[in-house]
């Protein structure tokens, strides 16, 4: 009963995002922003409800839930949309929380086993920053694609990726602390750590492209957009 009620919240949030996207495509910006806000609020309710799934509120359950990453993407878009209403790219980037919220809705909710090694603030902070950075990278990739199509500014996707990289670096530091406390090592030779390192190096490489003359704005945008493919592969295929 509780799960059905909460799934309705996410379904309503998805509807809000879809309506927002449609309204922005039709150039009805104010109505589109209102639908985006409504979707974000409903999404917040659903994501917070994940913490109660085990019958006891566990903050980590909120940030491990598949709905957290699209929520973070929605937050990034809302904040930047209201900072700079002239850049339509942000309003069109709502496709990111829309798609991943649908994925979350289709993913059966489960309680990750909260073994002793997960019950630390370091683990919670790790997931908060890691999935926030993934959200920033996906939004940045979409903004890069929109820039290539002439519908967004170059500064938008770059700023998104830079903040995503900062959050991802913090997640690596926090994650290594958690790994040491739980498993006696700051880095482990397992696929989770290896693909996380690959992603970090990918975006570190992106930051260096500005210093290479042959990598103009359009080439950098292609690189940024390609990051979504690597990120999706790391999240779902590896």
């Amino acid at each position: 009963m509780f799960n059905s009620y909460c799934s309705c919240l996410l379904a309503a949030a998805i509807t809000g995002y879809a309506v927002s996207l449609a309204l922005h495509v039709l150039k009805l910006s104010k109505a589109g922003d209102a639908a985006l806000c409504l979707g974000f609020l409903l999404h917040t309710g659903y994501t917070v409800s994940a913490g109660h799934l085990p019958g006891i509120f566990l903050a980590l359950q909120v940030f491990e839930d598949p709905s957290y990453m699209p929520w973070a993407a929605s937050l990034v878009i809302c904040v930047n949309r209201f900072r700079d209403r002239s850049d339509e790219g942000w309003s069109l980037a709502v496709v990111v929380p829309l798609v991943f919220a649908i994925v979350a809705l289709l993913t059966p909710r489960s309680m990750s086993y909260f073994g002793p090694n997960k019950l630390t603030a370091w683990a919670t902070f790790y997931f908060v920053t890691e999935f926030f950075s993934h959200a920033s990278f996906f939004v940045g990739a979409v903004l890069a694609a929109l820039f290539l199509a002439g519908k967004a500014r170059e500064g938008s996707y770059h700023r998104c990726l830079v903040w995503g990289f900062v959050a991802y670096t913090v997640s690596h530091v926090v994650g290594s602390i958690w790994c040491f406390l739980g498993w006696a090592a700051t880095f482990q030779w397992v696929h989770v750590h290896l693909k996380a390192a690959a992603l970090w190096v990918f975006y570190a490489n992106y930051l260096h492209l500005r210093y290479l003359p042959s990598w103009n704005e359009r080439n950098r945008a292609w690189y940024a957009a390609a990051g979504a493919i690597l990120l999706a592969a790391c999240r779902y295929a590896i």
Partner: protein
Amino acid sequence: MMLKIWKFIADLRLTFWLLLAVIALLVTGALYSKADYHLFERINYMPVSTWFRTLGLPVLAKSWWVPALFTVMTLLAVNTVACAVERLRALWPRRRDMAAPRFLVLMAPSIIHLLFVTIMGGHLLTFEWIEYRRYAVDPGSSIELPDGNLVVVKDIRMENYPETTYLKDRLRNARYILEITGSGGISERALVFLEPLRIGRAFLHTDVTKRTAGVMAEKGATVCNRAEVKSFPSSGPQFYIVYSRDPGLPVIVSLLVVICIVMTWFYVMTMRRVKEA
């Protein structure tokens, strides 16, 4: 000739290709690691060279990416140092043309890169010289650590999730009551998950797995008579004490703190300059 080689080594375009190679090798490694988790997980418990010689070489088709990754990372380290040196060489003659804080801000990225390379060196110390032991323990177990300390597990007190939750009967935490005998005498200490105990230069951590069913056959039997084989159902979790001594850890932690301070200072100064402009 030497100048040409130096210019090639210190070229940012080389950095781009080396980073792409690192990405490709890490993704490749993640795929191989997922396909054969047990093989690659063993790297964490022994020096990488030992792992490669004993376990990696016999399956080179799966493990080739490990030495390749170390090779490319070494080249990247050389390239990073060369780039940083080139930038410092270009900045140094200009130091009298600007205020000292401005000069330090311009030098900061190169310093950060050099610190980062040193942190990678710390990781290399960990990969090659970590000392790691894992001991299965029960109440009453005694273990002798590699550094000569004797640890007796007096008790293990489990804490499960509340009975009113869906996670009831699942382990939430455990407290090991240890009696440690060493050069400093005898002391009683508690060890819990996520709070490692420091003993000298080493740390004690906890670990837990499911206790597997044991099957006992009669010793010396040449035929396995299944009617005589006993099996023991799982009876609670199996606890472990993990001993680790990591020479790279102080390098990594201390330089990470320094990098955080330098980077924060760099961005604050840069933002200030942007605002003034």
